[in-house]
């Protein structure tokens, strides 16, 4: 493991999923969009929140949730302010 320098980005590719993904049966275009806020801003996290709030949650923990959604992680770009997950389906 490592800690990227401030301002840097880190790309992670999940080869297990991304290498052999078959999307033949995908058919529905319109997506569903969910946005959940737990604080008004990144600088207004409640005192009980861990450092970095949601961003401090490990990808494996999110994977458990994403399994319920029927999505798999293809790759992740991590930055200081936001982590962007590219997902299957």
């Amino acid at each position: 493991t490592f800690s990227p320098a401030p301002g840097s980005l880190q790309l992670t590719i999940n080869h297990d999923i991304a290498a052999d993904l078959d999307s033949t049966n995908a058919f529905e275009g319109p997506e569903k969009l969910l946005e959940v806020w737990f604080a008004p801003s990144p600088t207004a996290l409640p005192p009980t929140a861990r450092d970095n709030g949601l961003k401090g949650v490990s990808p494996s923990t999110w994977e458990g949730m994403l399994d319920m959604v029927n999505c798999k992680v293809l790759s992740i770009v991590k930055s200081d302010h936001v982590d962007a997950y590219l997902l299957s389906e």
Partner: protein
Amino acid sequence: SSMFVFPHKLILKTCGTTTLLLGLRRLLRIAAVDAGFPFHNAASTEDINVAATPHRVFYSRKNFLFPDRQQGPHTSWKEEVKFLDDTFENGSAYMVGRMNADHWYLYMTTPTSSALTPPLTPRSSNTSSPTRTRKIPTGIVPHVSGAGDAPADETLEVLMMDLDPELAKQFYLEQASAVASKQVPAQAQEARRAALGSLGDIDSTVDVFENCGESDLAGGQGAEIDVTAGEAMTTEGHALGTVVSDTCGLAQVYPTSHYPDARIDAYLFSPCGYSANGVVPAPDAGAEANDNKPAHYWTVHVTPEPICSYASFETNVPSGQNGRRTSDTIQHVVDIFKPGRFTVTFFETKNKTADDEAVPQPAARAGVDKRMDGIKGYRRMDRIIHEFDDYHLVFRYFERE
């Protein structure tokens, strides 16, 4: 599909027949147990039903093409609203647009202060029933320093239907492979580097987990390698996604010439389909100087098959940043796909100035900018404005001339 995780919020946008809302309660539990956000529906995090109290929630979508093939609560808007109403207090559901044509749905909760909404009585911690009977309050956010300084928030979403068939071919594996094979390797490499933002030049690292399992992906057990090796170990889907990003024009929506720190992660699916995430740090938000300067995102999803061709573009990069107007962004994206019709939704926070209630200031609002009505090659059919307590929503519907 895509997910964006900020310290204070999470955005999850999922395609096809995914069951997005079935992950909601797990999300609320993770926010309480793993991120430490306050909860009011349980005595402790040991309770299986513990759920963090969100500040606010948005759920939205366009009308489905094949609703009968959706799963879980997603077979109808009524069922989705019921699921959300069973989960949250203070929720409101809206339909925007023509019922007999393309329309758009929105569910949102309204933040309320803890003074107005007392916490619910904690549930017994020894219950193990998976059936939650109490709704989760929203908006109960402890006052902390900076809570009143929430930055302006805006989101643009362009949903395009009936894509130009020739342009849609770009998003097929076969065509993308042919395009890639015509590029000399150096050009292909350069395209990938451009899309990823010249990783090697900015003290970044590519962390590749080859043949890893789920726990490996999560635990960060992969080997740190240099950029050159990372390029070689990319997947076909990612490599072709990068080529498509460059050739179709999406890489130029927020070009590195104007947004030098912007990054794109793209994937081309087999046999077709494309997804991309962009991360756009705020201008001059380099290195350690701007911890409070946010990064923004954009995301694109493309389904190119003629029977259900569709593309979506979403961004929260502020309008006017680096001189680029929202109307310019819309025109750029629409020109990539040349859809037969499309909708534009634009969400923006209200001006919080003291005279906001007394003196409306429409001229200052990007959402009502007349330039957004004049997309070349299209006729605006509808413009519908919703005014919520703290947000404006402008919905537009366009058809090809």
